[in-house]
């Protein structure tokens, strides 16, 4: 990619230069390919020497020598068009470049040129020792050296302390995309806070099993709300990029899980105990079922789209647990949930379900490219 850019910049740059050459350069364009004869080289060297010595400015020179043609006598200074032609030609013709160099060295400009050369070499050596001040300009061309090209620009681009850290943080936030930006996050936080506050104020023992009951469907809901053409305003653009499809879906899913898991675990821990659920069950029992439902949503999403998949899986879950929980007291519900979510057999079952979902995702990985068909 970088290579492509430098090639193109070079090409544009060259075209730009030719364009500026325009009116003077074009009449002599045919002469560009002709070799530079000794007379022309000498004349060019003299004019270059006088210019470098500062006795005659480039602007006034062509006015006096407009009549100069390709076969200009040795005594006349060449026209500006001829100078352009010579300079273009020596860019790719070594023989003529040497001839012109020799002619220039024969003029009085030799000592000045030698000093200039020393100066340039010294400055180049200094730059090599300390590349920092020029690294921004070099970044585009130093593509072959990743360690070097990875360093420079961002410090200037991203405000705030620690450019590299800030860049990485920005990338993580980007990767999460709307998962961390959208109303999804706000509503989740508000909902969790409201449930915790209400339960603690009333001391209701049913809150813990109820949260446990709903928790597994929250990650699938988050996935559906942050990916796809209906949820992501950038989806149409993202779908045409290499990161679109499954990769972006997994990144967003990871972001959703990274937010929901700690939050729901915290909510489970803060809710008033009393429903009789042992130890870590209210905090962690839903993790494996939640993962299984999330992966199931992604797997089903490869067929019908994440929105419909999340809706289907979420409603199946809620309908089944609600119908099972109807008429149970808080204690009975807690016991049933503990058995259903946290029992050894249940955990094994949920693990198998999660693995199945993951396998389907892997098998169907290419079908996420066309989210449109959803």
């Amino acid at each position, binding site marked *: 990619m970088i*290579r492509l850019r430098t090639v193109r910049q070079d090409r544009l740059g060259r075209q730009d230069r030719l364009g500026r050459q325009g009116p003077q350069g074009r009449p002599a364009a045919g002469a560009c390919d002709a070799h530079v004869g000794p007379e022309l080289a000498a004349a060019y060297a003299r004019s270059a020497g006088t210019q470098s010595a500062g006795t005659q400015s480039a602007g006034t020179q062509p006015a006096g020598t407009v009549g100069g043609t390709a076969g200009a006598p040795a005594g006349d200074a060449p026209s500006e068009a001829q100078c352009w032609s010579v300079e273009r030609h020596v860019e790719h013709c070594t023989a003529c470049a040497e001839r012109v160099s020799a002619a220039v060295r024969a003029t009085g400009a030799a000592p000045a040129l030698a000093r200039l050369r020393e100066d340039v070499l010294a400055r180049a050596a200094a730059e090599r020792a300390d590349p920092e001040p020029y690294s921004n300009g070099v970044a585009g061309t130093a593509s072959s050296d990743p360690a070097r090209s990875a360093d420079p620009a961002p410090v200037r681009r991203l405000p705030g302390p620690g450019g590299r850290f800030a860049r990485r943080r920005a990338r993580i936030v980007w990767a999460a995309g709307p998962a961390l930006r959208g109303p999804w996050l706000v509503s989740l936080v508000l909902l969790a806070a409201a449930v915790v506050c209400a339960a603690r104020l009333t001391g209701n023992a049913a809150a813990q099993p109820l949260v446990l009951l709903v928790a597994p469907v929250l990650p699938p809901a988050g996935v559906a709300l942050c990916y796809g053409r209906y949820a992501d*305003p950038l989806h149409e653009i993202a779908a045409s990029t290499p990161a679109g499809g499954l990769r972006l879906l997994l990144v967003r899913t990871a972001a959703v899980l990274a937010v929901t898991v700690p939050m729901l675990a915290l909510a489970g821990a803060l809710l008033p105990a009393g429903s009789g659920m042992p130890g870590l069950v209210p905090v962690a029992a839903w993790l494996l079922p939640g993962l299984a439902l999330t992966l199931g949503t992604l797997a089903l999403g490869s067929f019908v789209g994440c929105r419909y998949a999340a809706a289907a899986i979420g409603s199946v879950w809620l309908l089944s647990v609600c119908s099972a929980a109807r008429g149970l007291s808080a204690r009975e519900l807690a016991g049933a949930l503990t058995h259903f979510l946290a029992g050894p057999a249940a955990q094994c079952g949920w693990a198998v379900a999660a693995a199945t979902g993951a396998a389907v995702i892997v098998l169907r990985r290419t079908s996420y490219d066309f989210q449109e068909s959803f």
Partner: protein
Amino acid sequence: MSTARTAPAAGPGPGRSGRPAQPGEPGEPAESGEPAEATVAATGLTVRYRRATALDGIRLRLGDGVHGLLGPNGAGKTSLIRVLATVASPTSGEIRLLGSRVTARGAEGHRARTAVRRRLGYLPQQFGYYPGFTVREFVSYVAWLKEMPGSAAADAVERAVERVGLADRIDAKVRTLSGGMVRRVGIAQAVVNDPRVLLLDEPTAGLDPEQRVQLRELLRELGRDTTVLLSTHLVEDVAAACTGVTVLDGGRVAYQGTPRELAEAGEAADGGSAADGGSAGGSAAAVAGDSPIERGYSAVLRAHRSGARPHTAGGADSPDDRAGSAR
């Protein structure tokens, strides 16, 4: 307009193949049988929605240059651009982008799409943005989606934003920009990765005349070494910026040629109808349009609808196009 004449000279012709190889680029399965210069090649491309047929056996071959896609509403312009952008899959038919079969099934197609998408730019007809994003963040986010290396992305983002003339607004929130500016942000995100194939759906919509002129300038510049396909309903955009023009109607190719040839088709139709119908005042039967190219556009549409063979101006592809679009 003189630009219509200078554009073909500036843009490379279909025969150009002198682009340097890019060894650093991701794998591009070289397929024999297709000429190297056709960066976009579609055959038998059909897109059907539930009942409607959006594209009906389109055959299209494009090389570097700026290609205009004209057609009335519902002609299939957006459907064509979306399947070429690998956003939607065609019902049937094959697409090759940069030589890779992006419509292939399974892992091969996925690999081809991923490789091609890195070198693709796409401006959708409508697109949204995250409310909190600035212009720089928006374009950077797309650069990230396009998997540009981080070190190159920061420079590329600034350059892309500068190219669309928004350098002074680069740190403004996108939601504070006018519609035309948002459109230009969309163009900036499309060109941020220096795409090899650039697909623009109505890029001039919402731009004022001055911005349109600037955009055409940018398109001509891009067309030198990029395949640009832009859909538009403004015939003058095509006249001013394009080296080639394709007219779609009812999901089929009604015409393919250069803008000048389209204008000549209009002149010819004018001459014909004048001979038939008499005075200019009674030109209800004559093709409509204020400029030659508009009349040409109307003429080819009318000819296509009356069931005539599609006009194709003399290019290397025309016999095939005729066969394809008559299918």
